[in-house]
Structures are given as C-alpha cells and as structure tokens.
C-alpha cells in the first residue's frame, strides 16, 4: 500500500508546488451602477497586480479591499458551491470564484458585468426574486402519496443515476440569465426552473411528475426553449442543461418518464 508516489510527479504538480510569484498586471473593466449616485451605469477600469492562478473573485476582493470599497457584489463560499457570484466575465456567464484569471486572457482588459435579464440593483447585484419565483412555480419538492414507509424508500442505483445530473444545481442563475429567450421575455420559466423540475420528474420516488409536466406545458414553459445551448455552456456545475430540457420535452410528448 505504501508505495511512494513522489517519483511520479507530473510537471503540473511541480509547477503548483514551486508556486508562481510572477505577478502580472491585469486590468479589470467593471460595469458599475449605483442609482443612488447616478441613474446610469458606467465602465470603470481597475489596475491590479495578480497571480494569474488566482480567481476573478480574488481580484474583486482585492479591488474592494484595497482600491474601492464601494464595489458591490455577492459572494460567500469562494469555491463554486453556493451560487452567489454568477456574473458576466468577458461576455460570458461564469462564477467569479471558479474562474481563474489565466483562463480569461489577462492580456486584455477583463470585462465584468452583471448577469443579463434580471434587473440590476447595484454594480454586480441583480434582483433574484423573479428567478426564485420561477423555481418555486415548478413545485421543486418530492411529492408522494400514501403512507410514509417506516424505513427509507428504496431506489436502485440506476434509478438514482437517472436524475443525478440535475441534483447538482446550485441555483446560481448563470443558465437562465444566459438564455436569449429569457432576456427577451422574463416570463419564460428559464432553464434553471426546468432543471429543478427534471430533478423530480425523473426521480423514481416522486409522484408529482404529471403536475410538473403540465406546468411546463405552459406557453412560458419548455416549448419556449430554442436549444441555443447558452445554458449548458454557462452552467458552472457542468449540468447538461439542454439535455435535461430535451428530456422534459420528450416526456411531455410521450408522457413517459
């Protein structure tokens, strides 16, 4: 068991351990908005010395802590599991805490702005209420009938696997706010709500599938999706969002799930 592994180091590990102290100069171009001060948004440039292996969130923190305390954004876990900090980085939705500076071309100014389609309240903070309303509208909880069993409900590994992908959702809204249909029509349920409906529709223990399908059969439901795949590209949890939507559509057509 105790075979030494140190000899098998890859270059990647060596590089990590050597630790890079080569700081590079990066410009962050942030779209700021504070209606208390000015009715319109502006772009503001910030110059920083950063280690390219740091996160974009580290850069925002650095700006807030060292240059401009008024910069406002949401963050909590700093490692991609709480869903607080979805924002548009170089034009694409990402989590700031899951995006390393080296991966977004620090040679040019890195643009940062709020996600699209939800009202911006201040700087990078948007109104999340419509997003959560859509989530609530799909009845995102286990629906069962009959008496509760004394022990756990049984579920085979295959049945558990069936909806594994969509249980990963952290409700960050990166998908919904990347969807062209949602930008144009905030009434559309949006991919995140559909993902969370999928989570239950395909759970073998759940009996509310019919109702949820009926909700998504609505004219603001799954049929509005134009398979543009922005949601799948944006999802920081790697959920195959478009696939989940497709499965819900097919379940509606065949009424089998």
């Amino acid at each position, binding site marked *: 068991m105790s075979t030494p592994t140190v000899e098998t180091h890859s270059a990647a590990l060596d590089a990590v351990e050597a630790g890079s102290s080569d700081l590079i100069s990066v410009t962050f171009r942030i779209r700021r908005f504070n209606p208390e*001060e000015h009715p319109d948004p*502006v*772009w*503001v*440039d910030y110059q920083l010395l950063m280690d390219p292996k740091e996160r974009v969130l580290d850069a925002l923190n650095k700006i807030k802590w060292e240059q*401009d305390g008024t910069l406002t954004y949401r963050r909590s876990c700093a490692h991609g599991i709480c869903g607080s900090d979805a924002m548009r980085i170089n034009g694409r939705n990402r989590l700031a805490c899951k995006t390393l500076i080296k991966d977004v071309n620090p040679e040019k100014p890195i643009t940062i702005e709020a996600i699209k389609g939800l009202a911006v309240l201040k700087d990078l903070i948007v109104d999340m209420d419509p997003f959560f309303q859509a989530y609530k*509208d799909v009845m995102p909880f286990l629906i069962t009938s009959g008496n509760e069993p004394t022990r756990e409900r049984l579920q085979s590994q295959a049945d558990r696997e069936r909806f594994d992908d969509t249980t990963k959702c952290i409700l960050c809204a990166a998908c919904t706010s990347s969807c062209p249909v949602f930008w144009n029509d905030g009434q559309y349920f949006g991919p995140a709500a559909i993902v969370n409906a999928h989570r239950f529709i395909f759970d073998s223990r759940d009996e509310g599938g019919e109702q949820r399908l009926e909700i998504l059969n609505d004219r603001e*439901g799954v*049929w509005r999706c134009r398979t543009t795949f922005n949601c799948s590209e944006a999802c920081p949890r790697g959920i195959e969002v478009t696939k989940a939507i497709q499965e819900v559509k097919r379940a509606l057509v065949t009424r089998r799930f």
Partner: protein
Amino acid sequence: MSTDTNDLVVPSLQAHTGKGLGTGNPADAFVVEPARARTRKTPRRTRTNFEMLAWLFMRLSGVVLVVLVLGHLLINLMLDGGVSRVSFAFVAGRWASPFWQGWDLLMLWLAMLHGANGMRTVINDYAEKDATRLWLKGLLGVATVFTVLLGTLVIFTFDPNI
C-alpha cells in the same frame, strides 16, 4: 461585443466619489434593462397542448419541407438552365400533372404554416408590449390566411389557356 469599450471608460479615481458621475461620459447614456418580471400571477396555465402541438408541427413540417422545398429549388433554379427557363409555359407544363399540383399545394401549406408559426415565436420573443404583440400577431394571421388561400386558389383554378 465586449471587446471594444475603450472610449467608454472613466478612470477609477473619478468613480463613486459620492458626488455622482455626471461626467458627460457616453456610457452615462446606458440604461439597465430590467426584464419583464415574473409575477405572482404567473404561470398562467394554458391547459391545452397548443404549444406542444405547434412545436411538434415545426419539427415534422420541417422534415417534410426539406424534401419539398429542396426538390422545388432543384427543379426551378438548378436543373437544365435554372431560372432562365422558368416561364408561364413551364408552370403550365408542371401543373398539368396532379402530382406537381399536390406537391406545390402541400409545400405551400406546410411552408406557410411553418413560417407563420415561426414568426409567431419571433413576435412573442421580441414584442415588448402586449398591445404590440397582439397587433403584430393579428397582422401575421391575416397575411398568412390570405396567402394560403390565394396560393391554393391559384393552384386549383390554374387555367393554362388564359
């Protein structure tokens, strides 16, 4: 695109001094576009399968249209001489056969309905106000019905001997 924002940038010193940003900066003209918010009233259940049927129709008609439209293009635009040979006589020759009559009729109906439904989607996506939406869809409906009827009439009542 997010690349060229150079001329829209204010230096960070200027920003958020607490005195506002009335800098004459072109960026000041931006507005933050709020989405039409979901309200408690939503979802308005439609309780019909209309959207699903429309969606299915788009796919089915699309597949059939591939044959019909591409065949049509091939014959009219490409095969021996292409458009140069299209004329009244050419049309007359084709519509003499019920096969081509059927072909064109089916193509007309499918394409118009497919296209009209597609346009309906587009209107739904972009019309901001309910009223505009209604007007545009009304217009679309009238134009579609008119075109389909006119086209049908032409195919059926075509008289090669006028």
